[in-house]
């Protein structure tokens, strides 16, 4: 039986369908989770998708982090449940304090939408274990508030503990400190990523299939667990 990967839909989520499709293309069973639902329906991992949950009101992710489903996701995350937050999902994970730092408005103030080259720097997560350390990938990036900030001590800690999961190559598209595109928690099960691997899972609709590895990785991790 394929592993069950939950994808949460908040009001204003955009990429929940694409994330579910990526799960299926990787060979998993995608399970729709609703923001009002406290129950995770026996999923083995959770994806918080991109979009503009609650219209980005107040701050991106600030209201979503208090959605009923998040109480259960946070609880699960502390017990080792693999959680991947993409774009708005990354913002939610930071607001929920599952990941340190915050995402702020792009330094150039423009919404950015481009195929972005990244270097995968940590493969010690259930979401990246099928990549090679240092592997370069291209996945779409699209955000208005994707500038990763944290104080120097936190940044040093992230770097020192190998918790930078992905870094921007070629150019820094949003002013993120130290070119950080994604990070993980200390245990490794929670990963936040600003670019969108779920949009790079098929040659027809993306720049390639470099993003599929995030989804095949978690399936492999769940089998190994």
């Amino acid at each position, binding site marked *: 039986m394929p592993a069950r990967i939950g994808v949460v839909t908040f009001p204003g989520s955009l990429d929940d369908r694409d994330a579910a499709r990526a799960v299926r293309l990787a060979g998993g069973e995608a399970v729709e989770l609703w923001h009002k639902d406290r129950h995770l329906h026996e999923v083995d991992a959770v994806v918080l998708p991109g979009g503009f949950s609650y219209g980005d009101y*107040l*701050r991106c992710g*600030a*209201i979503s982090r*208090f959605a009923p489903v998040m109480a259960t996701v946070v609880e699960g995350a502390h017990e080792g449940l693999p959680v991947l937050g993409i774009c708005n999902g990354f913002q939610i994970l*930071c*607001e929920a304090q599952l990941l*340190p*730092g*915050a995402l*702020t*408005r*792009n*330094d*150039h*103030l423009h919404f950015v939408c481009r195929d972005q080259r990244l270097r995968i720097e940590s493969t010690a997560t259930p979401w990246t274990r099928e990549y090679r350390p240092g592997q370069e990938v291209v996945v779409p990036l699209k955000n208005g508030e994707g500038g990763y*900030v*944290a*104080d120097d001590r936190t940044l040093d800690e992230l770097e020192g503990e190998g918790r930078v999961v992905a870094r921007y190559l070629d150019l820094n598209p949003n*002013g993120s400190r130290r070119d950080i595109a994604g990070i993980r928690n200390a245990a490794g099960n929670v990963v936040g990523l600003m670019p969108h691997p779920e949009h790079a899972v098929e040659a027809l609709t993306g720049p390639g299939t470099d993003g599929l590895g995030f989804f095949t990785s978690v399936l492999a991790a769940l089998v190994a667990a």
Partner: protein
Amino acid sequence: MARVVVDVMLKPEISDPQGQAVQGALGRLGFDGVTRVRQGKRFEIELEGTGDDDLLDRADRMAATLLANLVIEEYAVRLEP
């Protein structure tokens, strides 16, 4: 009914590209001498209850829980007369 005002601002060390854009626009409009602009948020909260300390304490908890992200922002709470 009491009214409490919560001002939320980015911490000084966090860059504020919106404030910078506003500063640039002010310069283009001929407003001279603008050396810095910081943009923030103001919340006006109408609250049931009495007792200044209690009202301020409740607003303070709202600010710390939801209105501000203390990683990047700071806030100030005051009672409106």
